[in-house]
């Protein structure tokens, strides 16, 4: 039986002034997918994610999130988002790891959105899932880029969402931390069936961890499974003969 479609992008276009950023992009993301959205710089990946999340209005087309048109969508507690450059944190910003993870709970709270003692176990659980429970009371600016990234993932998953969006989450993070980070995402996807949409330039992530790939360059020029991606001529075109792609799964 086919998995339920959680996100539907239909004929989406976006223009900024006279420039076409996205042209007639259509695809769907099913429950349990771990999808890599890739493409060259300036190909419209971040714009597309921002449109899917309702942060930008498309010039044309429709977005449906968890079965609801994006302009009517209200179940934000079912969505987790880690924006691009999330770890560009002002080192003097006076926020603890706990305070940042607690922000993620606001989407499920009615006004005045006060936190209660009953919220603590959820915060602790989210931090445990990303291996950061021991640093709960540390100031965010004191952590390394990789540790900050884990905190932002904890904030995004504290509500146990259905879908997690990540926009180039490991930019500026060392290789070893990146490996651990993607293993953690794979585990969340496998064990908890968390649907993940990941913007990345990193082909090693695509070949090792994801099960779906979408390639974008204003238009969607590939959307399919990891295996289809690895054997597709489109990939060779993308790599322009500079690399040899070895596809394998752990």
């Amino acid at each position, binding site marked *: 039986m086919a998995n339920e479609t959680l996100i539907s992008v239909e004929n989406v276009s976006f223009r900024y002034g006279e420039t076409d950023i996205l042209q007639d992009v259509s695809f769907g993301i099913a429950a349990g997918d771990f999808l890599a959205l890739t493409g060259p710089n300036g190909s419209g990946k971040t714009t597309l994610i921002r449109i899917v999340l*309702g942060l930008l209005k498309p010039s044309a087309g429709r977005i449906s999130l968890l079965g609801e048109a994006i302009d009517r969508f209200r179940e934000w507690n079912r969505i987790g988002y880690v924006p691009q450059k999330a770890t560009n944190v002002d080192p003097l910003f006076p926020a603890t790891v706990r305070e940042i993870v607690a*922000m993620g709970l*606001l989407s499920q709270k009615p006004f005045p959105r006060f936190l209660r003692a009953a919220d603590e176990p959820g915060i602790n659980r989210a931090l445990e899932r990303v291996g950061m429970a021991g640093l709960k009371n540390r100031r965010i600016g004191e952590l390394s880029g990789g540790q900050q990234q884990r905190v932002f993932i904890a904030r995004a998953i504290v509500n146990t969402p259905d879908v997690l969006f990540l926009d180039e989450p490991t930019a500026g993070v060392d290789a070893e931390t990146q490996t651990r980070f993607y293993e953690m995402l794979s585990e969340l996807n496998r064990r908890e069936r968390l649907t993940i949409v990941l913007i990345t330039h990193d082909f090693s992530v695509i070949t090792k961890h994801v099960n779906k790939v979408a390639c974008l360059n204003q238009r969607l020029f590939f959307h399919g499974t990891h295996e289809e991606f690895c054997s597709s001529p489109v990939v060779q075109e993308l790599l322009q003969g500079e690399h040899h792609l070895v596809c394998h799964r752990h």
Partner: protein
Amino acid sequence: MDNFLTYAFMQRALLAGIGVSIPCAILGVFLVLRRDAMIGHGLAHVTFGGVALGLLLSVAPLLVTLGVSVVAALGILKLKEKAGLYGDTAIGIVSSLGMALGILLVSLAGSFNVDLFGYLFGNVLAIDPEEVWLSLLLAAGVLATSILFYQEFFFLTFDPESARTSGIRVRRLESLMAVLAAVTIVLGMKVVGILLVSSLLVIPAAASLQVARSFKQALVCAALLAGGTTIGGLVISYYLDWPPSGTIVALSGVFFLVLFFLRKSLRP
């Protein structure tokens, strides 16, 4: 040495000073961290126009200035949003226009320069009981709103984009924050004057950020610094016969420097 608390004017000054400086400092933490500290400076210029208008119309200057400042604060947001201007450019335009309005009205009236000087340099010792109550009422409103919207303001300050994807109405919150800034500037105007009022928003907040390890600590520390420097400044100004506005602001500047060097020595 006589006891300053026996004088009604000192009691009123302390009440209004503490009541106004604490909400200013709390709101200041959000504004400083959002790089919006200059909105206080810009709105202070606008209050000059508001005061001049109030004096010209012979309507309570505090209320007229309140209206003018709120409109100016929302105008700054609209200029940023609709005209696509940078925040400091929008603030520069609105504050200059407010100041120009004040100069034109002063020139047209030509008779209330002495009153206007009281607003420019502040005269908390001359604050009357009605103004004390009005200030305390508005300050309580700002404080209560800041507490009710604390979590949203915190999220908005730290990461506005993720706040939107958590269902927080960011534009409404930004408007609310701008209105609160306008109200606190008008309140602070009577305590330290138009020329120094933005310091009530900026200095205690900036000082608290030198030492605070959490957001709640930053808010509590800024409030304590603001209350402490207001009391200290008023007491020093009473015994040394210094102007209260300058003394309060200078004292908070000293606290900022002390905490800055403390942070440098602890976390070089």
